[in-house]
């Protein structure tokens, strides 16, 4: 529908200009990448906030007052960032991908409206109470407000993932013609909401959010403990984060393995891209892959890589038990997703997942020996690891979303057909540049705010915060006092 013969990049007069399709996709990818960090921060931090608030109100323990107060501030700043970056998301379905909004309207409109009404309002209203209302409501209402904020965040993820899961494994509809256009008509709401992908995605995403926040909490706690060993609250927080990682990180690996099998069943093309599997036949599982040449980085093909592989295990996984099963290769398809991005993103995510299990076990061992806050090596590693949960979460989403290409609705609507036909390259490039500049500023502001919150906390704890000891972002200046 939308001409693919147009060049993606052209120089027009004075400016470099991208095609509407490329600019729209880059813009959506970039804005969702930034938004998802803040959105998953809300989802992951919510249970921590509920726990701290409940302990604070219940026990009056100073440690929990401190932790609640600190993390509610982080939550509030993150929530505002999540709101202001979230509104552009649903707008872009209309501004950049109007054919998608129109074709899928009956299927995605309901869940998106429920997200606003059942989840977003709940979160926004009770966060107002949580932030400003402690003196104005009873303790019970206050704790309840923290629970409702958390429920709002988790419900929000639920409705949004219903939409995304439907795009991966669309069900419960038939195509009809309305106002001269082929659109999807809802025929079975249960099938459309609870698609095969939905439960896999929800568990994987919520758990990924908790892992990411546990790593962030661990990193911040490790930094404060490193600066001020006897900070009781932060020793508690560090221990709590490690214990949560001990449960969630292995769970993610086990769950992810089964999830992969499900993807092979429902989206064989994506699975083939994840394994760079071109020729239909038995597939090996590549645990580790190293490019033999520069070409192999940008265009990985299983046969051009040094791999540490389990022969036939790709077939075994995809078929559910047969080492010789035939796995469809990418050569079978007319148009494929950008294989390199999917292949390497997948390996990056899985590698980080195993790293998190290792960190959790290390921390668990130190807790067992009662030396959690004594090992400088561990503290510094955790500080360095604090943003890595988000790196894994983002690359995981790249596998899911880029791996679905060229489809926006798997098997039904191509992304190129969804792009606005009234959009000009100039407009699209202009807003893309605007979003890139503004969101980079936003990320820098967010990192600074986190840094100031940590510095304030250290000051209150009586630790020295000097100018030459500034903490720009998650990785501090590491000294050699190991």
């Amino acid at each position, binding site marked *: 529908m939308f001409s693919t013969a147009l060049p993606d990049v052209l120089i027009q007069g004075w400016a470099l200009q991208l095609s509407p399709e490329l600019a729209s996709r880059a813009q959506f990818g970039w804005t969702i990448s930034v938004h998802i960090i803040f959105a998953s921060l809300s989802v992951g931090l919510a249970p921590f906030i509920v726990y701290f608030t409940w302990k604070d109100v219940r026990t009056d323990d100073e440690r929990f007052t401190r932790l609640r107060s600190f993390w509610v501030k982080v939550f509030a700043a993150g929530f505002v960032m999540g709101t202001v970056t979230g509104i552009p998301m649903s707008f872009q379905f*209309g501004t950049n991908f109007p054919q998608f909004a129109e074709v899928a*309207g*009956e299927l995605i409109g309901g869940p998106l409206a429920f997200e606003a009404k059942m989840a977003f309002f709940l979160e926004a209203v009770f966060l*107002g109470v949580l932030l400003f209302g402690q003196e104005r409501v009873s303790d019970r209402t206050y704790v309840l407000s923290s629970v409702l904020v958390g429920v709002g965040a988790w419900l929000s993820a639920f409705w949004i993932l219903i939409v995304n899961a439907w795009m991966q494994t669309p069900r419960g509809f038939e195509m009809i013609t309305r*106002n001269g256009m082929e659109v999807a008509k809802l025929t079975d709401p249960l099938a459309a909401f609870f698609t095969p992908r939905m439960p896999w995605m929800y568990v994987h995403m919520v758990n990924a959010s908790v892992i990411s926040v546990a790593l962030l909490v661990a990193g911040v706690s490790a930094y404060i403990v490193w600066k001020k060993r006897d900070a009781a609250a932060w020793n508690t927080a560090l221990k709590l984060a490690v214990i949560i990682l001990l449960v969630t990180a292995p769970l993610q690996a086990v769950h992810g393995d089964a999830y992969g099998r499900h993807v092979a069943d429902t989206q064989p093309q994506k699975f083939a891209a994840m394994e760079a599997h071109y020729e239909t036949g038995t597939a090996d599982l590549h645990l580790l892959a190293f490019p033999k040449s520069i070409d192999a980085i940008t265009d990985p093909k299983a046969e051009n890589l040094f791999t540490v592989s389990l022969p036939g295990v790709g077939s075994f996984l995809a078929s559910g038990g047969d080492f010789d099963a035939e796995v469809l290769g990418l050569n079978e398809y007319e148009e494929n997703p950008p294989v390199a991005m999917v292949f390497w993103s997948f390996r990056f995510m899985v590698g980080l997942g195993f790293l998190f299990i290792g960190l959790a076990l290390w921390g668990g061992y130190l807790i067992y020996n009662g030396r959690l806050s004594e090992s400088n090596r561990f503290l510094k590693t955790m500080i360095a690891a604090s943003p890595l949960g988000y790196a894994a979460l983002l690359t995981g989403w790249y596998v899911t979303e880029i791996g679905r290409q060229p489809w926006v609705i798997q098997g039904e609507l191509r992304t190129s057909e969804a792009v606005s036909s009234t959009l000009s390259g100039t407009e699209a490039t202009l807003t893309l540049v605007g979003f890139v500049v503004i969101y980079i500023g936003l990320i820098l502001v967010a990192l600074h705010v986190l840094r100031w919150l940590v510095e304030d906390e250290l000051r209150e704890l009586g630790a020295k915060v000097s100018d030459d000891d500034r903490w720009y972002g998650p990785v501090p200046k590491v000294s050699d006092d190991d």
Partner: protein
Amino acid sequence: MTELVLLVDAYLVDALPEIWFGAVMFALAMYVVLDGFDFGIGMLYATRDDEREKETLLTAFGPVWDANEVWVVAFGTMLLAAFPRVYSRVLADHYLLALGFVLALLFRGLGPEMREQRDDERWKRYWDYSFIGGSFLAPLLFGTLAGRWIFDAPTLSLPALLTGVGLVTVSVATGAAFLTAKTRPRLASDLRTYGIVATLVYLIGVVALLTTVVVTDAGGAAETVLSLPVGAIVVLSVVAGGGGSVLALRGKYRAWLVSALGLPALLSLLVALLLYPTIYPPTGLTVREAIVSPLALNLVTILGFPALLLVLWYFKFLYGVFSGPIEGEGYES
């Protein structure tokens, strides 16, 4: 299973498409009324130099703005759920205005929140600019977009720009009324002047807009504008605006607030009248043509309306918790 078959084949009630048009317009009205006074607070903030007065304005804004802003998401997603083609066309055909609006919202929302993060004069000043600029541009762009949609007019045309200016001025009026009802007398009497001037400019703007529409027949709306209901809305607006101004001068701020909030509500009603039955004038698409199939609409009705009632209850609770006058950074108990 007969009930299910009924759900699939026909709308729960015959008028369900019209009811949904009303529901979408109700969400729009909630947004224009509630976030409108947030925008007003943001613009009036530009007139304050004293740090303590600024803090008072931010305290009025802080606990409620985020929840108020969600109404634009509710409006958009309800429009998408019931009238997908209208959602697509409104946004795709007004690309820069729509994305400009969401970016203005971004700066408006971040301003007050980020300002509090650091006690540094320059830092605070820049976030003040962000708050004020966003609060001015958001209603201007949203109104201009609405004007283009309703009157099928280009961005740089009287109908579109007057709608934008109308939304800006009505926001200042409601913002001033909201603040005077919540602050101490000295600040209140200072702010009410802005509110009264904004009300008068707004009323003149609405009359100018409707006159332009009648003269040029923009979007074929002249006939509707000359109808009795629109006339009644204009008269009611003049009564609410004029009467409100008198109440404001007499220091009856709570009564003023009620009549001032009536202005954006009447404006939304005007929009609803102009968009029915042709919900997208540029292509002549009607409510009945744009509506989704019975099953989809019945489903969002059964699940969505109880949720909407619950949301209204949340708001009652929220405004109950944060009622009463403000002084400096805190609420008085």
